[in-house]
């Protein structure tokens, strides 16, 4: 897998537009979704996600396949972009708007209960602090491994596990407070 990552990186480095487009197509939904659920603003998320891929191209020579997967490196850029954005926005925008969080829940036609549960979950996620929200999103939404999250956040795996445990407990209490799920 790392070999493919290195080949992809080399192709992009050499100015291969097709390889770059393939990479964007492959990761765009996950990166954009992460940015949207972190910021709670559709236009900010679009801008941040675009910036992630522009940075991927401009700094591709800094990617080292020996240190980690390309996906981990991309999500690290996404994390840094969102963290900088939220820091600049200040505390007032720390918690994203529920409306934007619910932006693309399943179309009507899905079982109502599932839609309700997902709406409740999106609402509870919006209520979490930034640090808790990003951990839960990375692990349970983006399905990243603990070791990958540790690399992205630059903290030990054990710290990821303990913070994740706390974040899930907070999410659970937010859901129960709202009598949800």
């Amino acid at each position, binding site marked *: 897998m790392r070999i493919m990552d290195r080949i992809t990186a080399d192709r*992009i480095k*050499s*100015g*291969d*537009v097709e390889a*770059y*487009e393939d990479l*964007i*197509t492959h990761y*765009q*939904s*996950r990166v*954009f*979704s992460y940015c*949207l659920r972190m910021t709670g603003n559709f236009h900010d*998320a*679009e801008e941040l*996600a*675009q910036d992630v*891929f*522009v940075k991927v*191209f*401009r700094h591709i020579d800094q990617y080292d396949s020996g240190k980690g997967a390309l996906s981990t490196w991309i999500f690290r850029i996404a994390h840094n972009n969102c963290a900088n954005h939220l820091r600049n926005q200040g505390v007032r925008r720390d918690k994203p708007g529920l409306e934007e969080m619910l*932006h*693309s*829940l*399943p179309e009507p036609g899905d079982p109502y209960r*599932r839609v309700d*549960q*997902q709406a409740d*979950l*999106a609402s509870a996620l919006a209520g979490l602090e930034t640090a808790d929200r990003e951990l*839960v999103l990375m692990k*349970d*939404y983006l*399905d990243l491994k603990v070791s990958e999250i540790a690399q992205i956040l630059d903290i030990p795996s054990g710290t990821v596990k303990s913070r994740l445990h706390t974040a*899930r407990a907070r*999410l*659970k209490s937010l*859901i129960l407070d709202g009598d949800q*799920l």
Partner: protein
Amino acid sequence: MRSDLKRIMSDLPYEKCPEGFAESVIRRSGIRQQAALQRSPSRTVQVNRSPAVVSALLLASLVIGNMTGLGPSDRNYEQLSFNTLTLSRQLASSIPEAYFQYGRNEEK
């Protein structure tokens, strides 16, 4: 509860990217311009400068500087140095072939 949470989280759909997202990123990145530059005849300016290449360039520059009187401020200086280096490499790679060719001819 936790397994429910995980299941619903993983069922939560990914957002669809806005229309034209990839194209917009490609335009902003400037990759097409870079690709065009690399295809153009003036690609010699896009040299991967490894330490060995830099050392060789410096050496070639010194020699050229002495021979031509050109200095680093002259526009053609770097190009001239690089061309000299390329020629030197071609010459160096041709020597063994000529040598072995000569050896075979002698044996006949």
